């Protein structure tokens, strides 16, 4: 998911909520608790996702460097002979 997409989704949605056909009662307290937790859990999730991306980026960068480094260390075929 793109960052802008995340931001778009993070912005409060103002259209009224339609009642689904759910057969379970979510429970008033449970329902409101989710809304209470929503902002912080959403923010945590964003941070986690982007932190993972940053880590992956450096990991890839590092492994590429390492590969290149290894390639540099490989002696040319003629030297082996």
């Amino acid at each position, binding site marked *: 998911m793109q960052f802008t997409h995340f931001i778009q989704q993070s912005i409060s949605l103002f*259209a009224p909520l339609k009642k689904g056909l759910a057969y379970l009662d979510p429970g008033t307290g449970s329902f409101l608790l989710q809304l209470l937790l929503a902002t912080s859990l959403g923010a945590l999730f964003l941070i986690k996702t982007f932190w993972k991306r940053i880590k992956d980026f450096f990991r890839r960068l590092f492994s590429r460097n390492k590969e290149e480094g290894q390639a540099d260390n490989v002696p040319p075929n003629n030297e082996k002979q």
Partner: protein
Amino acid sequence: MKSSNSLEIPSAGSSDSAESSSFRDPSGFLFTRHGSLYRQVNQTYRSDYDRLMESGLYSELAAAGRLVAHQAVDIPAEVPDLAYRVIQPERIPFISYPYEWSFSQLKDAALSTLAIQKAALEKGMSLKDASAYNIQFHGGRPILIDTLSFEGYREGEPWTAYRQFCQHFLAPLALMAYVDVRLSQLLRVYIDGIPLDLASKLLPRRTRMNLSLAAHIHLHAATQQRYSNKTVARADLQRRMSKVAFLGLIDNLESSVHRLSWKPAGTEWGEYYTDTNYTPAALEHKMKIVSSFLERINPSSLWDLGANTGLFSRLASERGIFTVAFDIDPAAVELNYRACLQSREKNLVPLVMDFTNPSPSIGWHNRERHSLMGRAPVEAAMALALVHHLAISNNVPLPHLARFFAEITRWLIIEFVPKTDSQVQRLLATRADIFPDYQFGGFEKAFGIYFRIVESVDVQDSQRRVYLMERSA
């Protein structure tokens, strides 16, 4: 496993019965006809069912072994007025319940539910329930058996099943991890999961320092209590929750479950399984006897009663026999399940069961969840090193024991452990011996009422004898 709450109760018709656990959700219901299990999908669920099938979610989950596979079948519906389709799900050989699972089984069922929810969200759908009873162990892993659990995800809506997930999974797992693993048995009392105020009261204070448990259990319980008798403004109930927050909730629940752990070591039973009085020769001979009996009867399914960590159960499951390995000790069942995972065993389901008080029928009409006896009979049963526990520790007269086994199985592989055996002597050490019939003759006489003794072999290097019996016609 749930279904029609419409006024039309699926009638007997040409079917044998509508599944009694399947009544809550109006999306459809399970029924059996001529011994085969079917699920009616109702018109009200049409668009969700089509989306499940057409979005690729069904094929993705079924291929990954996370959702039970099914086939659309062309047979008359059970309640034609409501019906959209009839499907035939792959049959699960043994239905088990969360109060019969070890810690890791419940944890894996929870993680599987969340993994399914994440996959569903990627395809624009969401789980409308998160019942632990919708998960079964099949082919060595947890699988969702309710095809009708999915609904289209409506952007902005909180997770309807959040409370159910906390009650069915998070609360029992936290109690098992932080207080005592035996608290899983609370699920037997509270069929819709452990009430969060109870879980909050039972959990130690330090769990309030754990952010996830503080939020999903303690704060959750407090919020439920606060709003239990309050009228909430309509506007509050129409507030929306972004998809990122929704994903954040699922992600947070997932890491909360991941962090909960329980180790079988250090329990009071910890040493029990190394403390047998078998010499290596006796153990080897007993395995040989059991193997030869299994080879002779070659059943398609077997229950091993008192299976410990499943050493003898594997003699059956490794021959391709579908085996349920019951034991009273949650530590043994946990070790057994972990061994199954490690060697990717597909034919073995370890479960917690106390045979002095096996699972009863519970729920609405006492018919929602079946008793152990309601899930019998099985083609073959094994009871090795079990009879003395039931007959002496629990005072069950031998003819009663024989009747019990005759009700659950046709073939019986059973070990008799006489009073001269050190294990029985240990049981009798602190009590009066009121068991004059507890000897080989009395045992054979009692079981002879219901069974024909096909063969019996003395276990070398021990006082014990293993019998192969067949129930009399």
